[in-house]
């Protein structure tokens, strides 16, 4: 078997449940941590970004309207499918991030476990973040958390898989749909994750993964009137400020990035769920 010529993969975008090339026809070279050529990745354009927003908006009603139990099972399914592909992820993470196989495998394991953790949150958010409101009048009042909508995610630049999953999973667990711009230098795990999502009952369009440059696509997403929130995790400081400023034009929710990329293995708590949830308060009269 050793003399068999391997079949290489063409890395494309994951958009609307399909794997298209960039509409721009552009690709860029991806190198491993040692500088060796690994693959040509699709270089997503502004138009790809806008197509992704259309796909994410189209998928929002179904995903946000699914039962929390269903969403939880789908996210758990992502973990199941990833587990079967752990070796492939380990190889990509090790090559891209320059980690030993053992440390890469630990990052992959943590990423899988993170899906499991968020899968368990979907049907608890309403109980933990919602409330019944004892208003001073004859009304039954209650508040429920609801997804914000379409979330643009600029994925972390360094942690190409664990970082990516750490920012994407909470967006989905809360019931949002996502347009993700991957790490620019280390985009391959994102596309492999797309293949996992495509085979895990995540409806097409719920996650759209663009490989390319956050500095190129980010400004269009930050400005886009049909994007409700933006996670700046992978935006360096000057870009982050520019994006936050332009997101103000449509009153987007902005999750700022810490100055340095955090340790993604830490317990995230609710810190990445809250920013992408709205609270709806409902009043209903009591009486005949």
């Amino acid at each position: 078997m050793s003399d068999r010529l391997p079949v290489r993969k063409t890395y494309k975008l994951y958009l609307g449940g399909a794997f298209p090339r960039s509409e721009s026809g552009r690709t860029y070279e991806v190198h491993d941590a040692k500088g060796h050529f690994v693959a040509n990745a699709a270089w997503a354009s502004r138009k790809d970004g806008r197509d992704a927003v259309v796909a994410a908006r189209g998928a929002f009603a179904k995903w946000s309207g699914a039962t929390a139990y269903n969403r939880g099972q789908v996210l758990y399914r992502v973990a199941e499918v990833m587990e079967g592909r752990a070796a492939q992820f380990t190889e990509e993470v090790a090559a891209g991030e320059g980690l030993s196989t053992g440390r890469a495998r630990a990052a992959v394991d943590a990423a899988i476990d993170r899906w499991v953790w968020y899968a368990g949150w979907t049907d608890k958010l309403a109980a933990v973040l919602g409330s019944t409101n004892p208003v001073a009048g004859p009304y039954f009042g209650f508040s429920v958390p609801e997804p914000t909508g379409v979330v643009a995610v600029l994925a972390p630049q360094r942690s190409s898989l664990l970082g990516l999953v750490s920012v994407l999973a909470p967006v989905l667990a809360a019931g949002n749909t996502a347009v993700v711009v991957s790490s620019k230098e280390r985009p391959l795990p994102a596309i492999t994750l797309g293949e996992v999502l495509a085979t895990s009952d995540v409806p097409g369009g719920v996650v759209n993964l663009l490989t390319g440059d956050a500095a190129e696509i980010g400004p269009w997403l930050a400005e886009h009137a049909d994007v409700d929130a933006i996670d700046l995790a992978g935006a360096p400081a000057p870009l982050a400020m520019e994006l936050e400023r332009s997101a103000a034009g449509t009153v987007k929710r902005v999750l700022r990035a810490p100055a340095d990329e955090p340790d993604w293995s830490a317990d995230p708590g609710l810190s990445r769920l809250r920013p992408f949830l709205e609270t709806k308060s409902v009043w209903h009269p009591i009486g005949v």
Partner: protein
Amino acid sequence: MTMFEYAPAPESRSIVDIRPSYGLFVDGEFTDGTGTPLKTVNPATEEVLSEVAVGTDADVDRAVRAARRAFVKTWGPMRPADRGKYLFRIARLLQERAREFAVLETLDNGKPIRESRDVDVPLAAAHFFYHAGWADKLEHAGLGPAPRPLGVAGQVIPWNFPLLMLAWKVAPALATGNTVVLKPAETTPLTALLFAEVCQQADLPPGVVNIVTGAGETGRAVISHPDVDKVAFTGSTEVGRSIARAVAGTEKRLTLELGGKAANIVFDDAPVDQAVEGIVRGIFFNQGHVCCAGSRLLVQESVHDDVVAALQRRIGTLRVGDPMDKNTDLGAINSHAQLERIRELAAYGETEGATCWQPEGDLPDRGFWFKPTVFTDVSPAHRIARDEVFGPVLSVMTFRTPDEAVAKANNTTYGLSAGIWSEKGSRILQVTDQLRAGVVWANTFNEFDPTSPFGGYKQSGYGREGGRQGLAAYLRSDS
């Protein structure tokens, strides 16, 4: 239709003692401002009520320093239970002086005394009472075992509910251990300045609450001061955007409560009389100067004519005039500038092809007034169906199916509130679920309570005020 004549029933203004001029409330004392003072007028009479100091950058800096000192030295280190006790004191003082606050609010704002007396002031007191109880229970608020205050909060509030918006801002900020620099609206500063006296009577430590009056420039100074940790703003979406831009790239936390264009949806099975009361309350409460006003009426086609006829009959009985009269339903428009804006948008309604209806009757000669107005034959593309008028102007549209009602209701860049009128519970819950709005009133409208989180979706802003959820805006969470 014969109407009972009402004898005038004016509330006495003798209870308030308006000083000829007011300074800024900084570090527990009234001090002079360095800007050119502004005059605040009674919009019902155009009488100048008082001259109010205007805070400059230097004044704001003084206030922020005082707030920082108080945060570091007194309010921050204080036992949480004691912070709570101060807030309980403030709540009680507001109740004790409720009549005074109500009269002053009506004089400065133009809203009917019935509303300031029965809604604004009691709710403001309730907000302090509610948040007082949180002060020593924050570890139970679901924000981790030891949530910490942010520091100095810079708060800018609007003129439509001057005291109530102050309460919505100040009460949660103080309960969570922050100190405050608050800028009231330029046209309605007086109840905030009376509130400063309440802080003195409560022996609130100096610097915990600072009130810096002024206009837009003063507000800009507050939100852009580098030592402010948290910015909270209620007002127009346009200003909200500029504030979000100004805090971009800083560490400041921001919450925004902005405009709205709420749909009030009436289904064919709704009890018409009850719905009409709710429609009136939804759009004419506070002259329509309400961010969550039900300014778009969506009526199921089959009952459109009945609902509009009943609505016009009811509007014909509304009393527009002297806000100090206890029988008045609609008071004065808060300012000349706002009146111009309402006139401009209403004029668009007519030129774009909608049909305008207003009740008979005269308006007072002096002051700023606009009659309750209903536009029918409105299309979703009309400006009066899209722009926030912030006045007593209702746009009526129709729908055939619940899906169409939801689609039309959500067809707006705003998402603050919505109303549903129907006798069918399952339909109410389904439509509630589909509306992209932060508050949904079923078979009621414009209800508020400190236990009920309030705030918008989409371009109506972010963050919540009230309830356990509202505390998050003023706390650093470990979780």
